[in-house]
C-alpha cells in the first residue's frame, strides 16, 4: 500500500477565539492535533496610548494609563506617577506611598485571581473561574470604595494618591484578607491540586532559565523558570523595603522547572505573599498627608527618566522624555505581555492545540498590554 498523502492544516485561532484573552490571533500550522508552529499576530488592540500622552499632558494622561493594562491598572498608574515624580523630583508622603502599595497589592491579588481563574476556564473547568471572579469582585468592591471605580481606577496622582483610605476600610480589608487565605486553600483543593489540572499543566511548554532571560520574560513568568528577580526586592521602590515578604520561584514540584504548572502556581504563591504585604501595610500605615503639593500645570524640567514597577505581569518600564513643556515629549511603556508573546512561537512547536491554550493562559498575556 502506498503511503497516504497527508498535509499540514493551517488554522486561524483568533482574533475572535474564546480563549485568546482579548483580541489576539495565532496562525497555527497543525498536523492533526499536534502543532508544528503557532505564529502570534499582535496589534488588534493598538490604541496608540503612548502617542496620546504627548497630547493630554502629565495629569491628564493618568486615566489613560488605566487602559494600558486594565486588569491591573494600579501598577500602570503607579508607573506613570513615579516617572513624573522622578522627572520633577517630587517626594511622595509616606502615607501616600502606603496607600499606593495597599492599592497596588490588592490589584495584584485581583489580577492573579483572574489569571488562575482563566486558567481553569481554558482547560475546561468553569467553576474555578467563577470562584476566582467571585473573590475578585470582593476586591473590586474594596477598591471601588477606595477610589470609586472597579476597573479603570485612576487612583494615583503625581505626588501621591487622590483619595485617602475611607474610614473603616482598613478593618474591612483586613477582614477580607482573613477570608482570602482559606479560600485560596479551597481553590487549590478544587483546582490546583486536581490530578487532571496537574496532568494538563505539568511538563507543558517548559521555559528554561536561559530561555526566559534571553526572551526577556519578566515577572511571574521569569520567576517560574527559577530566576529570582523581582523589582520590588532587587530595585526597591516605594515602601517595599519596609515589608517582610518572600519572592517565590518555580521549583518544578509537579514536573519540570518552568513549565505551565510552575507559572500557574507562581500566581497562587504570589497571592499569599501579597496578602502578607497587605497585612503589614494595613497595620503599619502611618498618619499624614497622602498627596504632595503639585502644581496643576505640571511642567517637569527637561530631561528623561525611566522607572520600573513590578506589575502583576512583571517588570513594567516607563520611559518619559520631557522637553520642559506641559506635555511629555515621548512616553514609552515596556510591558511584560509583549515580551511573553515573543516566546510563544518557539514554545508552540510540538505542542498540542489544547496546550496552546494552556500556554497562553499560563503566560498571562493581556491583549491591551501587548498592543497598548
Amino acid at each position, binding site marked *: 500500500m502506498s503511503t497516504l498523502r497527508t498535509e499540514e*492544516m493551517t*488554522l486561524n485561532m483568533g482574533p475572535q*477565539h*474564546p*480563549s485568546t484573552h482579548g483580541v489576539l490571533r495565532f496562525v497555527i500550522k497543525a498536523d492533526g*492535533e499536534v502543532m508544528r508552529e503557532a505564529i502570534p499576530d499582535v496589534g488588534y488592540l493598538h490604541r496608540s496610548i503612548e502617542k496620546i500622552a504627548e497630547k493630554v499632558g502629565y495629569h491628564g494622561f493618568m486615566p489613560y494609563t488605566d487602559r494600558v493594562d486594565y486588569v491591573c491598572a494600579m501598577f500602570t498608574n503607579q508607573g506613570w506617577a513615579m516617572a513624573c515624580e522622578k522627572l520633577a523630583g517630587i517626594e511622595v508622603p509616606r502615607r501616600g506611598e502606603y496607600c499606593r502599595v495597599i492599592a497596588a497589592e490588592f490589584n495584584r491579588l485581583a489580577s492573579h485571581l483572574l489569571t488562575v481563574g482563566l486558567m*481553569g*476556564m*481554558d*482547560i*475546561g*473547568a*468553569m*467553576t*474555578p473561574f*467563577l*470562584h476566582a471572579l*467571585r473573590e475578585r469582585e*470582593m476586591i473590586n*468592591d474594596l477598591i471601588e470604595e477606595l477610589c470609586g471605580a472597579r476597573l479603570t481606577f485612576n487612583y494615583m496622582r503625581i505626588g501621591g494618591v487622590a483619595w485617602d483610605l475611607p474610614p473603616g476600610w482598613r478593618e474591612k480589608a483586613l*477582614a*477580607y484578607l*482573613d*477570608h482570602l487565605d*482559606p*479560600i485560596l*486553600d*479551597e481553590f487549590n*483543593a*478544587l*483546582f490546583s491540586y*486536581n490530578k*487532571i*489540572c496537574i*496532568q*494538563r499543566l505539568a511538563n507543558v511548554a517548559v521555559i528554561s532559565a536561559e530561555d526566559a532571560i534571553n526572551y526577556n520574560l519578566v515577572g511571574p513568568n521569569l520567576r517560574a523558570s527559577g530566576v529570582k528577580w523581582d523589582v520590588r526586592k532587587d530595585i526597591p521602590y516605594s515602601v517595599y523595603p519596609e515589608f517582610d515578604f518572600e519572592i517565590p520561584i518555580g521549583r518544578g514540584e509537579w514536573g519540570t522547572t518552568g513549565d505551565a504548572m510552575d507559572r500557574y502556581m507562581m500566581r497562587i504563591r504570589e497571592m499569599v505573599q501579597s496578602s502578607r504585604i497587605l497585612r503589614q501595610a494595613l497595620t503599619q500605615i502611618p498618619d499624614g498627608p497622602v498627596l504632595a503639593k503639585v502644581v496643576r500645570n505640571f511642567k517637569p524640567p527637561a530631561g528623561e527618566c525611566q522607572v520600573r514597577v513590578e506589575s502583576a505581569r512583571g517588570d513594567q518600564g516607563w520611559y518619559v522624555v520631557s522637553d520642559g513643556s506641559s506635555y511629555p515629549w515621548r512616553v514609552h511603556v515596556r510591558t511584560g505581555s509583549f515580551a511573553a508573546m515573543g516566546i510563544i512561537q518557539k514554545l508552540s512547536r510540538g505542542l*498540542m*492545540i*489544547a*496546550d496552546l*491554550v494552556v500556554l497562553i493562559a499560563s503566560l498571562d498575556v493581556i491583549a491591551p498590554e501587548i498592543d497598548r
Partner: protein
Amino acid sequence: MNNSLVTLIGRAMFGPAPLDHTDQAAAIAVACAVVLFAIAVPFASIVTWVERRVWARIQSRVGPNRVGPNGFLQWLADGVKHVCKEDVIPEEADAPLFKLAPYLVVLAFILPWAVMPFSSMLILADLNIGILYMTAITALTVVGVLMAGWSSNNKWSLIGGIRSAAQIISYEIPAGLSIFPAVLMTGTLSMQGLIRAQKWEPYHWFIFANPFCFVAAIILFVSTLAENNRTPFDLPEAESELVAGFATEYSSMRYLFFFMAEWGNMFIAAAILVTLYLGGWQIPRFNWSPALMNLLQFICFLVKVLVLVFVSMWIRGTLPRVRIDQMMSICWKYFVPIGFINMIGTAIWVAFFPHGSRLMEMAMFALALAIVAAFAWRVAYFTRRSRMELYFHPTI
C-alpha cells in the same frame, strides 16, 4: 417486508400486544415510539434547566430563575427561541450531510428508550439482548457527530468530529468490559433479567457484589461520561479550544438537536448503570395492585437515574477537561486493563460463589457508607473553613 417485521416484532416479546396481528403490533410500536418521544424530549430539555441550576449553585450563582417558578420553564423558552432562530447552512458545507447529521444523533438518542426498563411491566420491548442493543445503538452517535464535523467544512468542526469519533469508539471498549461482570453473574442480556437478579436492598445490588463489580460500575460510569462527551471528556465540543467543536456551524433547531441528544444521553447512560449495578426498579414486595406497584417501581427507577444524572452534572461543575492524548491513555492504559481484570475476577468469583457472598456484600456496602461519610466530613470541613459570611453583597 411484512414477514421480517413480524419476525422482528415477534422476537421482541411485547407485553400488551397480541403477536398474531402485525398491523396492530406495528401501530402499538409506533404509538409507543411517539409516547416515548414525547417523554424523552421534554426530559432531556428539563435536564438542561436542572443542570444550569445545579451548576449555578456550585459556582455561587443563581442560575435561570425568571421563566416560570424558579425558572422551571426555561427549557421551553430556550426551545422556542432555538426553533425561531435562523437556520444557517454555510455555503461551503456539504448540505445533505449537514442536514442529516443532527437527525442521526437524535436517532441514537431516541432508539435506546425502547428497552428502557422503567418498571417490571413498563418496558416497550424486553429484548433478550437488551443491554447489547443499548450499547450498540448509543454508539450510533459517533456517525452523526463525525458527519457533522466533516460536512460543516470548518477545521474546528472537523477536529471536534474526529476527536469525538476517537473518543466514543475507544470508550465503547471499557464500557463493554464493565457490562460483562453483571452479565456474568446473571447469565442474561435482557434488561429485565438483569434487574430481576438483584434485590431491593442496597447491599444486594450488583455494585456491592464484589470488589470487581464496584470498580466496574465506576469505570462504566466514567466511560459513559466519555461517550456522551461530558466533562471531563468534553473534548469534541471543547469551547476554549475548538470554539464549539463539531457544532460550531450549527444553529437553530439543528444545534438544539445535538444538545438535546447530549442531555438525553445522560439519562440513558445513568439508566444503564442503574439497571446493571444499582438494582433498577427493585422495591420491597407489597400486596398492592400491580398498577400501584409499577408506579412505585417507576419512581424508584427514576430517582436512581436522576441521582446519577445529578452526579454527572456535579462532575461537570468540578473537573477540568483532559487532553486528547490523556483521554486515550486513560482509556487504553487504565480502563481497558482494569476492565479485563474485573471481567476475569468476576468470572472467578462467580465460579467460587455462584450465589454471591453475603459477607462480601456487607463489607462492600460498609465500605461505600464509609466513603460517603468521609465525603460528608470533607464537605463540612470546607464549609466551615471558608467564612462565607464575609460576602459584601449577600442579597438574593
